[in-house]
């Protein structure tokens, strides 16, 4: 499976999940899967790298969720992680120091 095909499949799964929940009437919170995916990736990658001090390849595998729609970038100098899910949703987490770790902004 090519990377492009994987990305398309991920997008379809994410949109499908949102529509399925909306249709079933079980949706309780206004956040959708994409918002959660972006927030989860930003925060947990930040904590994995800067609190747990694990290598990036470990952290990438550690935060991988289903559907795997989140993409992220790391600013090592400012200890910040920005993540997005299907471009539509973004999130940023910043390392605050040795006592309080990462905060999802």
């Amino acid at each position, binding site marked *: 499976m090519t990377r492009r095909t994987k990305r398309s499949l991920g997008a379809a799964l994410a949109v499908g999940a949102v529509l399925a929940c909306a249709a079933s009437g079980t949706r*309780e919170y206004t956040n959708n899967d994409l*918002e*959660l995916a972006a*927030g989860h990736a930003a925060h947990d990658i930040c904590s994995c790298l800067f609190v*747990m001090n694990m290598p990036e390849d470990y952290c990438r595998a550690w935060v991988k969720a289903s559907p795997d729609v989140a993409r992220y970038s790391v600013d090592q100098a400012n200890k910040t992680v920005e993540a997005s899910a299907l471009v539509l949703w973004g999130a940023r987490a910043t390392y605050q120091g*040795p006592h309080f*770790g990462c*905060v999802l902004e």
Partner: protein
Amino acid sequence: MSLPRAAAAALLCAAAAAPTSVRAACPNRGSWPTDGWPSIAGQVATQRQAEIAALESYAFTLSGKDEERLGLRTDGLVIIKNGQIVYERYARGWDAAKPHIAWSVTKSVTNALVGVAKVRGALSEDDKISKYVTITNPDSRAADITIRNLMEFSSGFDWREAYEHESYQVSSVLAMLYGVGHKDAVKFVTSHPLRDAPGTSWDYSTGDSTLLSSVVTAAMVPSFGEDFAFDLLFSPIGMKTAVLERDPRGGSFGGSYLYATPQDLARFGYLYLSDGCWAGARVLPDGWVAASTATVAPPFRLKVIHPDNEPTGWQWWLNQAVPEQSIATRPWPDVPGDAYAAEGHWGQRIIVVPSQDVVIVRTGDDRNATMSVNDLASKALAVAR
């Protein structure tokens, strides 16, 4: 630790304690692992080869490819007996210096912070939380929620404790940590409708624990500063790697986001094993450990989501039969009945066994398997006997 440093630590803790605390005798231990754990692991390794093989076969045998996330995936395992490390091993890229996420083990640390606040007269478990935080809820009953209610998972909030195996959007936890609630956890938790009157039902809730930690923070920060948890709990017991993450408003996520090395988590267990004392001084109030590790009184127990059907104390899990709560037998039958545990998602555990003077810490990343406390602890106790 040298005697002068031990004495200095004792004086420091004693000076920090409020005069309201009632002093009971602290355990008389020869040394305290504030600056390092003594280890006899090498000696035990030669004496307990069969027991260690059984333990490692259970805890460290990996299944399938790493990306398949199958079976038990232990990252660290430390066993303390009589104040010494008798076993220690790390795997999957982890080592003794790396702080590991503790997930809901954090709840038991929040219990300790309530005790730290109580010993200084900053709060009492029967205080209404509305004394400390703003309650945004149209239901007037929410104003009656007490600190005790939160410690006993009986706020009454209609909370959905769901994780990655259910629809993300119905999960109160995911919404709080990553979604609509992450910017203000107190406001998010307290805005939930009340399903039951406070103190009348039991429901495991990371929201209750998060709210609890925010109440403690509100009670302590004005007098002790935002580092109170570090100054009054972590530093005195040598937990140098502890991290407690917060929301953007400074509210602590006291149900989820503690990080520490396994050796530091063992120090936390050792504090409870030592009746809330450290180096001869009381960190937690007299009777706090006993109260926190006693079963929460009935009448309420609406539902139990924990797979092992374990009863709870105040943010601790217990190895007790509670027939009136439909727990007919001890959940860990091969482990002494006085054992209790801090438990976190994906297999994080601090298991305290007072009758054997043992603390067991296990960190891991179990995504599709549930580690058995009974199996792990019974095998660890065989190593530590």
